[in-house]
């Protein structure tokens, strides 16, 4: 793939990719770092992209692996006493912040695959078939993960409202 083509496609994906990583990692700075790392990795292997899947799916797959590695490393470091990770949010009003923290907590309570699949759907805008390729799962499994995730979120968020 030529460089200009790569950058053009990258610009089309940057919004959804950043939104996805921010929600997945819960921190905008870490999401930005993960995104840059993923872009560099994708750039290095762009000649290996053979068009068997969509560019967006391929890029998201790389980004998922990068994010997962970073989150595992962070967990490992926090185990050795580097302290709990700080969440950095940038919201306007207190009410908005409360709502978003509720959502973030509820999302973090989901199993990893359910959370990843759901965020790929909502923020990445990928279809079930694309998510199945990005996560190396069957479409049925992707659908089940997303449905179960939404069911859990509905229960948790409805309970909070009581």
């Amino acid at each position: 793939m030529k460089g200009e083509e790569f950058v053009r496609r990258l610009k089309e994906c940057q919004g959804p990719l950043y939104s996805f990583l921010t929600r997945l990692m819960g921190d905008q700075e870490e999401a930005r770092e993960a995104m840059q790392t993923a872009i560099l990795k994708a750039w290095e292997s762009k000649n290996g992209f053979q068009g068997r899947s969509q560019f967006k799916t391929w890029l998201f797959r790389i980004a998922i692996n990068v994010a997962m590695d970073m989150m595992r490393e962070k967990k490992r470091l926090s185990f050795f006493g580097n302290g709990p990770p700080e969440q950095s949010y940038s919201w306007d009003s207190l009410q908005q912040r409360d709502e978003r923290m509720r959502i973030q907590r509820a999302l973090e309570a989901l199993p990893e695959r359910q959370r990843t699949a759901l965020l790929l759907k909502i923020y990445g805008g990928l279809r079930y078939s694309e998510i199945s390729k990005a996560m190396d799962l069957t479409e049925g499994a992707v659908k089940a993960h997303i449905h179960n995730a939404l069911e859990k979120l509905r229960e948790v968020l409805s309970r909070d409202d009581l």
Partner: protein
Amino acid sequence: MTCRDVQGRMLDALLGEAGLRERILLGIHLLKCKACRRERKQYWEVLRMIRADSPGPPGVDFEGLLGRPQKRPTPLWIWKVAVPVCALGLLMLTLWTTKPQDQLPPSLLHPTTVLEVLWGLDDGTWERVASELAPEGNLDIDGLLAESSLPGYEVLLTAVGGPPQSSTGGDRR
């Protein structure tokens, strides 16, 4: 469609993964079933909360990150000339090739328009539409579907007062 069938399909529809026919059948069920409408509203609310917080663009300098020189932007005057010329050309082509009888009759736009609008309604509006369709609360959609040989969405269209379509197969009773 039973309430049990509805749940998974409702989520697919809310996530943009359901086809038109499925959304039509779901819409018909939702018109009848208050419990499923309530559930739909809850899922809608969850999705709204999740989607509400979408971080702004990251502002990454891709060219700088990848060590590539920035492209010079196209001069503005080219856009000021090219866009109107292309637009005029397209307009002339459209006028030249489109004949009045080639346009879709308005009735063919109704099913998708009506059902897309219905599907996007909030809970209160669903209730209002349902009560308008059957002011005495006795709308028998199953009966309508059983009696008619028309496809489901044409039945719904008839029920909401739109023009019936000519059936593609089978005789109308």
